[in-house]
């Protein structure tokens, strides 16, 4: 679907009003930060290693956070249960790894990748389905009330986490990273874990897809409009409820994808693994600006890079580096890097 009205009629362009401009400043923040870190780190190869690792970690955080920013920002729903979808996505790999464990230890890149993609597909399917149920049973009755959302999704989280315990047991479960993705590429003194390269690929793909979907179709518009005034959207003839369900389901599926990526990174499954990253995820969304997919992307990278640099330069501060980033960004831009809507 393409925009109905692409540009204003010709004579409008002459009007003196400035057009909405892309805001490049936050984007410049990432390279600026990297450059600033270079002299501080000193050693170039260490700097490259840290920077690459940070970028890749940022992608993984982005994958986990993107679903939440979608749901949180567009639909104005705080899903504290998002973490459990990450866990669920992670555990879903077991469904694939059970019968196909051989593919993981095979030395073939293709088999390994196929296995990963299969895991992703299954995980996204599972989390999407659970997301649909979650939306229907848990979230729908509390649209509009953040507080109740927090409580209800928290309840959903506890129940789902217990369900994971009941199905897969309480002990941590190790999972094998496919053979060819183990270890690292070494270029002189610089090392880059292979898995991180893969994560960068997936992250970029998802980012681009989301951008296209939200900016090139009217779905994004409809959701934003629907959050502000669902009645009016219905009066315009759109079935907004159905759309909301799909957004929630998409958000859950993205969490599932993030979960798979995170699972293979951690190589151990625990039911609480999703919850553990939630504070980080929230920070990233806030830094980016609620609901901004681009902001979430930049925010993730920023947070991960800072964590790496700080971890190297002043490990004592690493504990609070995320909060530091958030505080600085909010002082600079109280609405986050890319403020989206003022609700």
């Amino acid at each position, binding site marked *: 679907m*393409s*925009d*109905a*009205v692409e540009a*204003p*009629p010709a*004579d*409008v362009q002459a*009007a003196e*009003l400035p*057009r*909405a401009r892309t805001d490049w400043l936050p984007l410049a923040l990432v390279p600026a930060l990297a450059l600033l870190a270079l002299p501080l780190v000193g050693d170039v190869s260490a700097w490259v290693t840290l920077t690459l690792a940070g970028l890749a970690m940022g992608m993984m955080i982005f994958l986990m956070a993107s679903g939440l920013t979608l749901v949180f920002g567009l639909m104005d729903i705080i899903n504290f249960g998002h973490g459990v979808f990450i866990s669920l996505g992670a555990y879903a790999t077991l469904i694939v790894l059970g019968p196909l464990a051989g593919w993981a230890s095979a030395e073939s890149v293709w088999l390994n990748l196929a296995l990963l993609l299969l895991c992703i597909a299954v995980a996204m399917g599972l989390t999407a389905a659970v997301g649909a149920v979650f939306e229907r049973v848990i979230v729908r009755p509390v649209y509009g009330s953040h507080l109740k959302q927090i409580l209800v999704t928290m309840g959903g989280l506890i129940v789902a986490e217990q369900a994971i315990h009941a199905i897969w047991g309480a002990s941590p479960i190790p999972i094998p990273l496919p053979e060819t993705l183990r270890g690292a590429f070494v270029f002189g003194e610089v090392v880059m874990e292979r898995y991180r390269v893969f994560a960068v690929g997936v992250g970029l793909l998802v980012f681009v897809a989301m951008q296209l979907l939200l900016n090139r179709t*009217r779905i994004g*518009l*409809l959701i*934003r*409009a629907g959050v*502000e*005034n669902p*009645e*009016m*959207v*219905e*009066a*315009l*003839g*759109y*079935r*907004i409820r159905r759309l909301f369900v799909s957004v929630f389901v998409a958000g859950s599926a993205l969490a599932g994808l993030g979960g798979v990526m995170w699972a293979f990174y951690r190589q151990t499954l625990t039911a609480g693994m999703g919850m553990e990253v939630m504070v980080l995820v929230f920070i990233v969304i806030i830094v980016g600006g609620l609901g901004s997919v681009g902001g979430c992307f930049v925010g993730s990278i920023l947070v991960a890079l800072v964590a790496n640099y700080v971890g190297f330069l002043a490990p004592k501060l690493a504990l609070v580096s995320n909060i530091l980033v958030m505080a600085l960004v909010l002082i600079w831009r109280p609405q986050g890097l890319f403020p*989206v*809507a*003022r*609700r």
Partner: protein
Amino acid sequence: MAETPAGTSASTFPEPLLRLEGVHTHIGPYHILHGVYLEVPAGELTMLLGRNGAGKTTTLRTIMGLWQASSGSIRFDGREIAALPTPDIARAGIAYVPESMGIFSDLTVRENIVLAARSGPVDPARLDWMLGLFPALKRFWNLPAGHLSGGQKQMLAIARAIAEPRRLLLVDEPTKGLAPVMVRSMIEAFRALKAAGETILLVEQNFHAASQLGDNVIVMDDGLVVHSGAMRDLVADKALQQRLLGLSLDAHQ
């Protein structure tokens, strides 16, 4: 009461585009509409008048399905729509401009109009015509609609309703907050729409404007229709005006 409810007296005429029969609406514990009968003939402009709190807005919202009629029938184009969900009512061909305007303030003017055109790109000729009616929208094409002035928001709300041809327009107090010059062009706009064959149900407080526009007039009070008939009859009858609306035309303007 001299005036018979519209539904009964008009039944010999061809089926009107919209007909309400004995519509009751409750909002929570409040009983707001107490059995509304009215009809809107196709191709004409019908004015809905009444004091504050008479139930005009409630009537429009009930037609749109935004509030559910607790009893009674609403027939649109021969089809019962009282039980349909709002999107289906809109898809049946009814456009609605709410009293609060209902613009999406996070979205730009352009995006507001894009959404209003449900079936695809806006016809360029129609767009030109719309922007000719409301030049301010052209100027603020890419501004978030929340930043528009009160009157500009009103224009946007109406532009949205006419972005695509619809069978019936429900408009709640469109001239509220418009400068006289804009009221004039709004009147022109509705004339033009009527000329283009659209059917319009218009709520208006500005009786002066209303008297220039309407073919028919319906007056409500206390959740009931208390008068319906031709506009020119009401314009001619000062006593009736005084009784129904508490004014005479001369007092205003």
